[in-house]
């Protein structure tokens, strides 16, 4: 293992070195960096050409410039050396601060989208695999390929029109005809019916119940003015937490008498979490990331402790699931707080809270929750755009991998020895199906750092993608190389991590 890592690191170093050399030369040769000045006939032309020539070291041949760049990078690696700038851009500004700003911006933009797409994609992939060749399977396959082939800029324009501009207009005076409420209910009901499946009778029941529930909820929400002043309330957080606790227990432990204690422990954990959240209400107004973290850790820790204490002989499993329940409580609490700050954000954004461009409302000066809701509302469209694209591949990979595992001998063995279907799927199939995904996820996280060039441009984020395209357009090698350095190192590194994780997860594989 250690030999493997050392060898990989050494090889990777040379791969990165070679690729930076290639990249540098390609960028430097991609055009004339003085182009715009040559076309300019204003009086300061000579001085400006001289300034840029000096900034970009244009009087040095390209290999020399590459070595100068390597020297700049070296200064960042050697502690106590000269100032670490990663070189200067063509306006004589250090690249490192620009890179820091760009990475921060990109991470905010892409991480949420990638995680959400992963979760949603995996769940959908598993369900489609379990309902292979059902109408749901075909439907998802169709949607996945449709999304995969959509151009981002076009999706973005549509999203801006419908999810931002039109939805904002609707939110000003939220109103829906009963006909459209019933229609929405029917669509949601039909979706549930095909997901849950079963015989015709069961499907019809599911359809009816889900339709009624959806339409009813919508009607109540609309009539109570919920869309103007949305909130769950502590009661809502409590009820949803209890439902979640029940679902997690049913999914991960089953509802057999043997694991009944897991269910009770989880319900207790959800209740305790809700009480904690209720007690913490006075602190919500002045929350910071620190107090939020303290509260979150506290809620999860209490949940785990309760799971452990009440779990009986299944205390390990019980504590794990209680942890998940605790996280659910924290998520619900955050959602509740974000929703509660909606009216203020609505007012401060002039009644149009969902943004089409930029990363924040200028001069919002809001509380912790208001600022974050504003960020969420700015992230909404780009996140949807990125998700629609990457969701497709996760779904397909998970489905294929799940189907593959379901046909393995050990799954048949598990069934043959009388395990119930839940255990077979969750413990024997699903876990193993996730192994190939490790490669994909590692790859994607390396890609995340490269930013989303088109998405960033369209939604007005100045992240890594912007750094790269601007640098390339201006034939300004140092910002491009900073971008490349990060993405190249990330790619190599995450590849290695994927390989190690692979060996760790799958005992059949050995690293040599």
């Amino acid at each position, binding site marked *: 293992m250690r030999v493997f890592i050392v060898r990989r690191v050494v090889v990777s170093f040379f791969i990165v070195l070679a690729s930076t050399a290639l990249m540098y030369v390609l960028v430097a040769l991609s055009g004339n960096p003085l182009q715009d000045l*040559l076309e300019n006939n204003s009086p300061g032309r000579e001085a400006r050409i001289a300034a840029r020539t000096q900034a970009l070291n244009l009087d040095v041949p390209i290999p020399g410039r590459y070595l100068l760049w390597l020297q700049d990078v070296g200064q960042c690696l050697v502690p106590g050396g000269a100032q670490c700038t990663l070189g200067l851009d063509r306006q004589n500004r250090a690249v490192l601060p620009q890179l820091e700003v760009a990475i921060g911006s990109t991470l905010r933009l892409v991480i949420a989208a990638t995680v959400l797409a992963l979760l949603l994609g995996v769940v959908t992939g598993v369900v489609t695999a379990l309902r292979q060749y059902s109408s749901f399977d075909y439907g998802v396959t169709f949607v996945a390929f449709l999304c995969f082939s959509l151009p981002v800029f076009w999706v973005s324009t549509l999203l801006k029109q419908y999810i931002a501009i039109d939805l904002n207009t609707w939110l000003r005076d939220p109103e829906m005809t009963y006909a459209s409420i019933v229609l929405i209910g029917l669509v949601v009901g039909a979706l549930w019916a095909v997901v849950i499946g079963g015989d015709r009778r069961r499907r019809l029941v599911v359809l009816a119940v889900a339709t009624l529930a959806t339409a009813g909820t919508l009607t109540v929400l609309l009539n109570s003015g919920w869309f103007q002043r949305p909130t769950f309330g502590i009661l809502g957080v409590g009820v949803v937490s209890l439902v979640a606790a029940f679902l997690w227990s049913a999914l991960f432990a089953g509802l057999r008498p043997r694991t009944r204690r897991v269910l009770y422990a989880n319900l207790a954990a959800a209740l305790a979490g809700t009480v904690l959240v209720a007690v913490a209400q006075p602190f919500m107004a002045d929350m910071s990331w620190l107090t939020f973290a303290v509260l979150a850790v506290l809620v999860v820790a209490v949940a785990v402790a309760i799971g452990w204490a009440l779990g009986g002989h299944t205390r390990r499993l019980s504590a794990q699931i209680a942890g998940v329940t605790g996280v659910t409580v924290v998520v619900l609490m955050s959602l509740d707080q974000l929703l509660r700050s909606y009216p203020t954000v609505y007012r401060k954004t002039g009644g149009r809270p969902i943004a089409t461009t930029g990363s924040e409302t200028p001069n919002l000066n809001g509380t912790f929750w208001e600022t974050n809701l504003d960020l969420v509302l700015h992230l909404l469209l780009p996140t949807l755009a990125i998700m629609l694209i990457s969701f497709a591949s996760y779904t397909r990979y998970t489905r294929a991998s799940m189907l593959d595992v379901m046909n393995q001998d050990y799954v048949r063995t598990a069934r043959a020895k009388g395990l119930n279907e839940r255990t077979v799927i969750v413990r024997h199939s699903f876990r193993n199906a996730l192994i190939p995904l490790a490669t994909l996820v590692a790859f994607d996280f390396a890609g995340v750092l490269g930013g989303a060039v088109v998405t960033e441009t369209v939604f007005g984020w100045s992240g890594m993608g912007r750094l790269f395209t601007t640098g390339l357009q201006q034939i300004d090698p140092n910002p491009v190389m900073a971008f490349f350095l990060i993405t190249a190192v990330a790619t190599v590194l995450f590849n290695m991590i994927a390989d190690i994780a692979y060996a760790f997860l799958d005992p059949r594989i050995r690293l040599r």
Partner: protein
Amino acid sequence: MTIRRRYAAVSAVAAGALLLTGCGSAGGGGDDEDAGAGEATAEEFADTITIGIEQTPDAYNSNTADANSVYNTYVNNITQSDFVKVQPDGTVEPNEALGTYEKTSDDPLTVEYTFADDAVWSDGTPIDFDDALLAWAAYSGTHPSGETDADGNPVDLFNAASTNGWAEVEMPEGEAGDKSFTMVFKNPYADWEVLGAGFMPAHIAAEQGGLSVEDDGAALVDAITNNDTAALTPVAEFWNTGWAYQANLPELPDPALIPSSGPYKLDNASNGTLTLVRNDQWFGEEAKTETIVFKTVDANEMVQALQNGEIDQFDPSNATKDMLDQLEALGDTVEVETGESLTFSHIDLDTSATGVFNDQRVRQAFAKCVPREELVDKFARPVYPEAQVLKLHEILPAQAEYEEAVTQVPSANEYDEVDLEGAKALLAEAGVTTPLTVRFTFSEQSSLRADQVALVKASCDQAGFNIEAKPDPDVFTSLASAPGTWDAAVFGWAGSGLIASGQSIYITGGNQNYGKYTNPEVDRIWGELVQVTDPADALPLQIELEEQLWSNLYNVTLYANPGMSAWSSSLEGPVYNPTQYGGTWNAETWTKSLS
């Protein structure tokens, strides 16, 4: 049977429910509280106006060669004051808030400037002599650093974008703390009136350059008066780079370094968004709106951002029919004003001794066959329906004098309509063998120019020319440094509305006289024009110049490029401004209604 009956029952219930619900609706009515609030504030104005710009401003000092971008100008329009304010029609009006000026002599041209007594930077420091002297030092190009650039030219301490005009000014004399100064010109300069601009806070530059700021900046005044290069070097260094922002504007520099002299001052910046607030030390008429925000938005996303209320106004750098259609589809929530910009399209001809167009009659034949009306119809009128064929070079339709001037240039009207017979006759008279091959060059990146060349070819090939389209990835370099490789070229010139700036395009041996046109009369008129000191005297000379450029044909002007400005109809105040100052020239007078 039972199943079928159950289906029928379910369907009946569902259908009934649909019928019942078909006409009702849930929700609506709005929030009572909000509705009440809306009524109460209907007469009031919003406290923030957001302006969309395509690139982030990159420096507070927009007068350096590195930062001379239009987006800095948009901000500086309302954060820095000049002695004059250029109006959208190009006329110059004094800005009495900053102070007054008076021409006291024509020979030598002498102008006396006086800062208003209450004129101060937003940090309270009076605007006075040291600011004026620093402006002269920076823009006059008289402070060599001792270094030379790659071509061996001396490099000035100050990296000024332009030394035009200021280079003709003698060093102003005076004492630190004086509220007035005098500009004496070595040579008369026609655009002297717009030179009273570009004042940066000298006390900041001095302090950052390590000079004392006591006694109204006496140390800096001494350093400049005595030409003390050692003392000035750090000051110039700060002047050049100290006011630059970080790339993409993640934050502003220390607010103490960027005091304003306009109705607004810089407040904060984050993620490419710049916020200005009212300058509480401002000495002119108070700005109408408390906060102005500049938000960076991609050019293609402006319309939707405007529609969603995220920006209230924007000036597209490239106004297209497509964008106009999108804006017009938004109905009366948005106002669009189009017009003719100060950039104009034209066809230059190689008139040098070896050029195809050396013979005046060939040039005239070409001018007669270029379908100017059709080009305007296809490329200018879609955006600005009243666009017209451009008949002058130095006065553009956006300028107030155009209408009157064009009637006094008879020769400019000779090529209004396509005259293929006339063109053929002229070619025959010139004795050239037809078809006469013309290598017509244009920017390879522009499909617009390619279409225009195709239209010219369709018409002129009938008159005896053989137009060969010659797309060039780097058309300006070829025009300037590869004579003989092209015969005609279509491109745009950005006019400035100034009197003297076009000289090098038309005079014999001028830098931008790519076609090597030579006309002693034109040279003479320019010689007089640049030294005119009263704008009223310039117009007759310009008319004389235009007559020369048409009667001894220089080139074929096509049209002034259409420009556009768009704003939310809740905004009161914006107009389309074709000058380089852009839409924000009067942003301090804008208001935004809340209803």
